[in-house]
């Protein structure tokens, strides 16, 4: 009899679980009985932490579109990516995501997104730079991201510390501020010798957060590229030379290595004046890690030929394929409102602290010298590789390679291991 009850209970459980599963199917219909299409927008805080701007946008949009309801959910950079992976695999993805190409194109390539070719087609004639298109394109040639703004990543320096160490002479503050590897080394050595800070700079390598900064540093020092001519992930001979230089500087204490630090930790140390420079400065970080105690100078990454290749960020939107045409249409409408509305479009670009992808928006930072300088650096944008296959797998190998080099593994050996692993 006990067996009978056990079996009966097991069946009950199975039916109960099956019932749980089946209830989610009808929920995929976005249009409710009152004719309102409900969409969910997940946003990383690119419009600013706790700015409330996302809700402002949603409210303004809903005031114009009575038939669409927008639910806003803010996700953070620490756990947001994991939440997205879980939601997508569980079939509970949001309708819209505000993010950057790295993740968006990965989702597009995995078949989770709606192609936005029609929207991009309209945007093409107004794009500030043709190269922006490649950041939005998936492996199948479809466009999965609708861009709104972009900005370069660069270095930040502590002006007062450099002055105190008589190291400012090595930094070019004229024109577009490009400078050389030789002067970068001299600046670090001057800072070390003067002892004005605990360490001149920290090459963070404890995680993949902000790792574009260390890649830009390595690749600019001797003009190497993370993507080889054959399209493979590579640290070439010049990259190895750069790694050797960094190791030499680490050994001579002209630089330090942050083995358990990601960019956020290094930025904090920069803000607290533990070090005199940061390798992960950008328009957003310049706001988040601002300090009134000293003057922060923006400079491009130093290079042997004096011509930098900068990494850059593109902010944009994607629409998840939740099997509901009404939701897809409503999502596209909302994205257009955020990016292209005459009033809210430019406002949204400024809110991201970056530069518009639409040429017709012109200079949104009239009279702001710093932003005009940064805008001029768009000419130094390097090839965009965040959407290339294997990008996610390459990133942990990158910071581990740096750790190995600073821990004494010959640079060539560490680079070989990286090249093998990243292309496996």
């Amino acid at each position, binding site marked *: *009899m*006990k067996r009978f*009850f*056990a079996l009966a*209970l097991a069946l*009950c*459980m199975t039916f*109960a*679980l099956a019932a*749980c599963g089946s209830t989610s199917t009808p929920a995929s219909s976005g249009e409710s009985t009152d004719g309102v299409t409900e969409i969910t927008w997940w946003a990383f805080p690119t419009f600013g932490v706790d700015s409330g701007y996302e809700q402002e946008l949603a409210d303004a949009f809903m005031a114009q579109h009575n038939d669409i309801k927008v639910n806003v959910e803010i996700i953070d950079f620490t756990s947001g*990516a*994991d939440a997205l*992976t879980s939601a*997508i*695999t569980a079939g509970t993805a949001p309708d819209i995501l505000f993010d950057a190409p790295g993740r968006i194109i*990965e989702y597009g*390539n*995995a*078949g*989770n997104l709606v192609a936005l070719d029609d929207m991009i087609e309209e945007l093409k004639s107004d794009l500030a730079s043709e190269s922006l298109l490649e950041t939005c394109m998936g492996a199948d040639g479809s466009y999965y991201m609708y861009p709104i703004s972009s900005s370069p990543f660069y270095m930040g320096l502590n002006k007062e510390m450099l002055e105190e160490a008589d190291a400012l002479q090595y930094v070019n503050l004229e024109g577009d501020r490009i400078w050389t590897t030789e002067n970068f080394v001299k600046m670090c050595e001057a800072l070390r010798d003067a002892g004005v800070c*605990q*360490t001149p700079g920290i090459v963070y*390598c*404890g*995680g*993949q957060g902000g790792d574009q900064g260390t890649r830009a540093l390595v690749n600019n020092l001797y003009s190497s590229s993370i993507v080889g001519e054959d399209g493979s992930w590579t640290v070439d001979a010049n990259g190895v030379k750069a790694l050797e230089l960094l190791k030499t500087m680490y050994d001579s204490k002209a630089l330090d*290595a*942050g*083995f*358990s630090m*990601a960019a956020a930790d290094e930025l904090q*140390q920069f803000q*607290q004046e*533990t070090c005199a420079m940061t390798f992960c400065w950008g328009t957003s970080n310049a706001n988040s890690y601002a300090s009134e105690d000293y003057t922060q100078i923006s400079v491009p990454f130093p290079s042997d030929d004096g011509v930098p290749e900068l990494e850059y960020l593109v902010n944009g939107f994607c629409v998840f394929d939740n099997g509901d045409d009404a939701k897809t249409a409503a999502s596209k409408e909302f994205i257009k409102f955020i990016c292209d509305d005459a009033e809210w479009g430019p406002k949204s670009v400024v809110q991201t602290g970056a530069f518009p992808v639409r040429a017709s928006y012109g200079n949104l930072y009239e009279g702001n010298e710093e932003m005009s300088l940064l805008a001029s650096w768009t000419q130094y944008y390097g090839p965009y590789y965040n959407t290339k296959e294997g990008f*996610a*797998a390459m*990133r*942990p190998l990158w*910071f*581990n390679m740096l*750790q*190995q080099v600073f*821990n004494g593994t010959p640079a060539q050996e560490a680079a070989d291991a990286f090249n093998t692993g990243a292309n496996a």
Partner: protein
Amino acid sequence: MATSKAPARSQILQRRETLVSYLFLLPALFFFVGFVLTPMFMGLVTSFTDSSFANAATGSKFVFLDNYIRLFKDPIFRKSAWNTLVIVVVSVPAVTAFSLWVGSAIYKMKSGVRSFFRCVFYLPVVTGSVAVVVVWKWMFDKYNGLFNYVIRAFGGEGLPWTESQTMALWCIILILFTTSIGQPIVLYVSALGNVDSSLVEAAQVDGATDLQVFWKIKWPSIMPTTLYVAVITTINSFQCFALIQLLTSGGPNYSTSTIMYYLYEIAFRTTKEFGYADAMGVILALVIALFSALQFKVMNGGTTE
């Protein structure tokens, strides 16, 4: 007639009681099956597939033992497994011995003092792991951390702590130790307080030393608690994850990566290969089961017979 009716009624009553028991179990069983057994089964099945984020939409295929074979060829997995083993082998005896020592020292104290110590040692357990790790991270900070500040104040040179390949794992073990001892101490205080005092007094009357009283009377009496502490600490040590993620992200150079952390990295951060990550989960579950069974065997299931 009467004799044949009585067992029949008894059987009916028994059935009713059984039914009621099962009905009471039903809510818990629902969650257990839905959130424990089903995911476990799904994880086991997925570990034999090439399921990944990239092929989630197109579907995965069975690869049989490929994931398991790949595991043992993966140097990062081997390193993570070794680190996990070191954490378990060091932390389980340390936590058990320290908890027993503290428990023995405080269980005889006045209730107020005893409660104070229990609170002190239990505090890290009830404090959120994120808050705990953030404070430790600040203390271990190479530049402005408390430990290096003290070392420099005495004229020494700051240590690299979590920045060093050789020190980082020990920093992890230290934090794990502080967050693991709370519950065992409370359990030992309770278990030692419940040891039959007449047995202790009888042994003392017979001339037994304190050490003899402990090994011959108290130790056997608290054996079930020791077994529980050992098993729970082993499982927690094997599953150490949050503090590694928050403190070192498995670095430097994978020196603090554990199976749990590597599993997470594979499933959510890097290649997002769910099948491969699940294979790690299955191996980890098997090893934990093996260790727990071994502990049951060595400790005679918590008895002294």
